[in-house]
């Protein structure tokens, strides 16, 4: 094995939790191949790896959601076998899952204490629960009412509730699987502060994130998984981002961002003073008077945090949300109507939440790809199988979907490949403007590169490409032109090489109120 | 804005509902006037001259005939009437009796919704001083209702079975279709059939199936039975609806000359008897029983006595091709 095993500081302390030679087989897939990992108390262990490398499986085994096929788990030096996740939780191991596991129909309080209700004389004591809930939320710098419904919360707030639930369990070992995917920068900062407080108390934290830089900020130790094997472990101070990327994929990060020279055409999409009401709170404008132009052949990136209005802007352009005021023009013609009419006019959206809004899980890869453009293959009411098949297969090649074939169930694909299918589905409608909402969210490094490559290719073909991102690295490297959105307003419009990373971050946080490159 | 719209919707719903109710009550005008008078009367003497008639669902022409006859009779004697149906739902029956009590009805004519489930509501009316006269179906308690006038199911089944035996010439294979097993009459009729038929060793029952009083079930089951036993010469059914279902199945299987006997004396069955495709049915004189009940109610209101024992039975009449023209809707012309 190629492991560079350097672990001076973990060796200094007795590990609290150890995975020893753990193998996990699902049906016939080997998700883990003899992985060993030591977790030291009071330190943050960050686990790196591409999608499908086995990170989530390892976390599930450590938290007893799954049991290992071979190998074992040692807690405080003794071999343990947990009967259930509840067992593990009682022994001080809590996990924050990648997928939110909250009941949206219940209040924050009910969710926090679900299964461990605080009772007085056999009855649930709401006063006690409310006080404890308030305390733990305050610790996360949140002033949410513990009695408000989870369904009324933003995604980021829901994630904080999930974190609060783990904190309430007074865990000795806290496992966090992508805890920040929906959090804004200030929220992430608060979370990191809490993590620091926890480690100071001796809690061991295991942390997984696709935000490599962010994860490296909080790491004490790092471990890198590749294809189910542990390929390297190291102390965070000894390594840098380039090392992480190299170890994960075996190449430098620069290759992620291909350089290109755009050839700009006429104005493809133009908005004039466009405003969109916040669907969750109709009194507020999510998009507030935005005017922008995108030319054919141009890739435009929108950088903005959660709640900046980027999703609402794209959904309005795609016809899913109505405009409160303002106009949208597509090649000079007014763009109106339903999602369907706009797709026919040539505007296609790749939505942010691909599970919920992008894919039909009960259908195959091919059926998902052709769904939007199915009528193109209809001859006298009947769908031409041959026509559909060849179009689907060429699209699979075009967007480089890695699947066993067009008939593979969509659920068998990794997150990155599912994202490519959603993009492919949009491209099948032969759009003139391609809108992508956070196309790199929950996608592994290699697939990210493929997604950006596809975007660049489409721009070269003359499409206008508009995408959003919450990662500064992407915002600075991918688009030909960068827009920065803060609370529904456009604060910057400039080529990305004219702005520094720090300046971009402070603009997006709303800390810097000067505007850049706007007339 | 969304609130005001919702409010508007609620108001609209309420208005429409109220409108509908008004229209419906206007339709039921016959009892509306009675209601008004009844209320007026109650303020002075606590007794109205309203006779409440409660029957099962009027879907069935039998119950409709029964209700119509009682209504006509009562009105000819100067009473106000209200006719309602309980759809064989004991709960609804109880509500209808409550309504009659609160309107201080002079008497209740009831075709009840269950031999046991109806004892309580009848007792309730009696306690409120309202005499109850049961028709068509009995309850499992005596001394509560003033009269229980039922057609003699056992006798009816026997005369139907005797005609069946005669038409079969005392030999051959036959099928019996029975009614809903939870209904007492289904058992009484089946027993009546068998008491007679079992005396003739030449008659062999090749199948017995419950078709739950339903025409289509009788059709399907008869078709299936014919597959196993193509050699069937007779069908005897617990009611006419099932007999008609069996007839349709026989027709579809192109079997002619099969003796079919039913029970009830429904107009559809009598039409088939006239046409010669059905042999006979035992007619329950629904109208007669209802009229009898109204007369006894009148007697009781005037004298405090019915002059009859509580349990009375009215014999069924055999309808064959020979006398079919003498019968109307559940009554002899």
């Amino acid at each position: 094995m190629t492991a560079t095993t350097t672990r001076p500081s973990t060796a200094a302390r007795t590990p609290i939790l150890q995975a020893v030679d753990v193998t996990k087989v699902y049906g016939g897939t080997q998700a883990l191949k003899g992985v060993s990992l030591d977790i030291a108390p009071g330190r943050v262990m960050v686990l790196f790896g591409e999608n499908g490398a086995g990170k989530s499986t390892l976390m599930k085994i450590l938290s007893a959601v799954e049991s290992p096929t071979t190998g074992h788990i040692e807690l405080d030096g003794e071999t343990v076998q947990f009967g259930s996740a509840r067992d593990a939780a009682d022994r001080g191991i809590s996990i924050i899952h990648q997928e939110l596991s909250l009941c949206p129909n219940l209040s924050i309080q009910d969710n926090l204490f679900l299964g461990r209700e605080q009772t007085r004389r056999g009855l649930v004591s709401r006063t006690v629960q409310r006080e404890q809930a308030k305390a733990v939320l305050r610790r996360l710098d949140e002033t949410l009412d513990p009695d408000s419904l989870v369904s009324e919360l933003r995604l980021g707030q829901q994630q904080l509730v999930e974190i609060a639930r783990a904190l309430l369990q007074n865990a000795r070992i806290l496992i966090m699987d992508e805890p920040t995917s929906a959090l804004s920068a200030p929220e992430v900062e608060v979370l990191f502060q809490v993590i620091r407080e926890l480690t100071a108390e001796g809690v061991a934290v295991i942390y997984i994130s696709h935000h490599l830089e962010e994860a490296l900020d909080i790491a004490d130790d790092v471990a890198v998984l590749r294809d189910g094997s542990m390929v390297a472990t190291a102390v965070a101070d000894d390594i840098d981002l380039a090392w992480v990327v190299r170890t994960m994929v075996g190449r430098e990060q620069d290759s992620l961002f291909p350089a290109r020279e755009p050839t700009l055409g006429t104005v493809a999409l133009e908005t004039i003073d466009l405003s969109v009401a916040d669907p969750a709170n109709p009194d507020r404008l999510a998009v507030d008077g935005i005017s922008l132009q995108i030319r054919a052949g141009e890739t435009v990136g929108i950088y903005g945090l959660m709640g900046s209005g980027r999703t609402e802007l794209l959904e309005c352009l795609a016809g899913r949300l109505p405009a409160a005021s303002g106009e949208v023009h597509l090649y000079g013609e007014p763009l109106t109507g339903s999602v369907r009419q706009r797709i026919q006019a040539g505007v296609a959206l790749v939505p942010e939440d691909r599970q919920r809004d992008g894919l039909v899980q009960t259908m195959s890869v091919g059926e998902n790809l052709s769904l939007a453009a199915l009528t193109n293959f209809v001859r006298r009411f009947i769908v031409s199988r041959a026509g559909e098949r060849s179009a689907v297969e060429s699209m699979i090649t075009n967007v480089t979907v890695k699947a066993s074939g067009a008939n593979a169930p969509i659920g068998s694909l990794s997150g990155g490949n599912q994202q490519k299918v959603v993009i492919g589905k949009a491209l099948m409608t032969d759009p003139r403007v391609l809108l992508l909402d956070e196309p790199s969210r929950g996608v592994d490094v290699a697939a990210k590169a493929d997604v950006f490559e596809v975007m660049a290719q489409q721009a070269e073909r003359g499409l206008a490409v508009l995408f959003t991102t919450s990662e500064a690295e992407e915002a600075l490297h991918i688009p030909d032109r960068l827009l920065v959105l803060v609370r529904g307003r456009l604060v910057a419009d400039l080529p990305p090489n004219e702005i520094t990373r720090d300046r971009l971050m402070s603009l997006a946080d709303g800390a810097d109120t000067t505007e850049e490159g706007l007339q | 804005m969304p609130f005001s719209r919702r409010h508007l919707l609620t108001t609209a719903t309420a208005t429409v509902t109220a409108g509908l109710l008004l229209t419906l009550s206007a339709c039921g005008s016959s009892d509306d006037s009675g209601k008004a008078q009844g209320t007026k009367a109650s303020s002075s003497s606590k007794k109205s001259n309203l006779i409440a008639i409660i029957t099962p669902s009027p879907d069935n022409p039998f119950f409709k005939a029964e209700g119509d006859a009682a209504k006509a009779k009562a009105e000819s004697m100067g009473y106000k009437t209200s006719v309602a149906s309980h759809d064989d739902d004991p709960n609804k029956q109880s509500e209808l009796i409550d309504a009659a009590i609160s309107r201080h009805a002079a008497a209740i004519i009831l075709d009840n919704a269950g031999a046991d489930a109806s004892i309580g509501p009848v007792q309730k009316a009696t306690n409120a001083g309202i005499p109850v006269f049961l028709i068509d179906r009995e309850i499992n308690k005596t001394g509560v209702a003033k009269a229980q006038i039922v057609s003699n199911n056992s006798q009816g089944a026997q005369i139907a079975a005797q005609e069946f035996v005669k038409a079969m010439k005392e030999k051959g294979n036959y099928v019996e279709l029975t009614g809903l097993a939870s209904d007492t009459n289904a058992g009484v009729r089946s027993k009546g059939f068998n008491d007679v038929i079992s005396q003739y060793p030449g008659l062999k029952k090749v199948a017995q199936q419950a078709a739950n009083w339903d025409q289509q079930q009788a059709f399907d089951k008869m078709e299936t039975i014919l597959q196993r036993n193509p050699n069937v010469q007779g069908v005897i059914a617990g009611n006419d609806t099932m007999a008609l279902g069996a007839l349709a199945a026989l027709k579809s299987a192109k079997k002619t000359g099969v003796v079919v006997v039913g029970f009830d004396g429904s107009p559809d069955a009598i039409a088939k008897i006239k046409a010669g495709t059905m042999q006979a049915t035992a007619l329950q004189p629904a109208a007669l029983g209802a009229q009898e009940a109204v007369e006894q109610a009148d007697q009781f209101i005037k004298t405090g006595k019915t002059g009859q024992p509580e349990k009375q039975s009215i014999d069924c009449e055999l309808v064959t091709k020979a006398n079919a023209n003498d019968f109307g809707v559940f009554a002899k012309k």
Partner: protein
Amino acid sequence: MTNTLTTDNASVLQQRRQAAAEARRLKTLNSVFELRAFIALAVLIAVFSLLSDSFLTVDNVITMTKHVAINGVLALGMLLVILKGGIDLSVGSTVGLSGVVAGEALKGLHVSIFGVVAYPPVWAVVVLCLMVGAVIGTINGILITRLNVAPFIATLGMLYVARGAALLISGGTTYPNLGGDPSTHNTGFGWIGADRPLGLPVAIWMMIALAIIVAVLLRSTAFGRWLYATGGNERATELTGVPVKRVKMIVYVISGACAALSGVIIASELTSAAPQAGDSFELNAIAAVVIGGAALSGGRGNVRGTLVGAFVIGFLADGLVILGVSTFWQTFIKGAVIIIAVILDQSQQRFQRRGAAASAVAVATAQPDTELAETRPDHATTSPGASR
């Protein structure tokens, strides 16, 4: 692959063989489960044939199939609704209403303005009935797509409304003698119920034709694909630009028309129409669709399964009648069969997932790359599925 890893090569080969064997085993099991409804039907037929020699005769099979057709036609309509992730509880009442409309139309329609009685020909009566069913479906569709009433509630309401309409039109009485009258040129209604073109009753031909139409609709038209997608993920499908509301509307209209057709078949078989006809038929139709492997959550199910489901229910009922089993047991056994069918369906879903995983490994290990060379031999021998 480097040539120094001979022991690993052997283990890789072994692993591949095991995974492939596991995949084959699961695939066999899966196809057994896939055919579970067929197997259930075969078992039913075998058992009944053993117990009664009049069960498996051409004549009886035709009779039973004719009985199946009524529920089969309903179930095909219901299948579309369930594929969408909806439910249609109003079909039983629509059966009754359709029969009543046929009865009223054959009796003669009073055209009050002209003071004449019109006697529409039989084909017009059938079309009229189908239109009434389609109208009930349209109302369901409008309630569900425009007014956002939950399908269960909307169609539950229409269950009562349609039944009430049937009782109102008929005045509660049965329409006898739907044979028509030669003097009014509307005879022949009984033909649908009684005639046997090419030896099969018209009802069976109707079911066959409808099954073919629905199968083509589902397999080969854009509408069919849109329907599966809507059932699988309505939100994503709508965002894809599929006219989801129109799809939903159409399935309820088709379901209503199927129910009306069923009502016409019943009325013509009996040559009489009762307003109570079709009571609780919706439950039989749902049972057939579910036994046929469709998911009530939508997106999964097919014509073949639904038809087999209808046959299982119908053959079971008629077989028990032939054996002379009491009605109480018939009801009990029907319930048990529905539950067992759904349990088997759940197990099949599980096997399907495991089978897919195992064959994925067999494929992956068939093209070993350098990553696989790192696999350690002591773990490579782990038997797949041993952990479960």
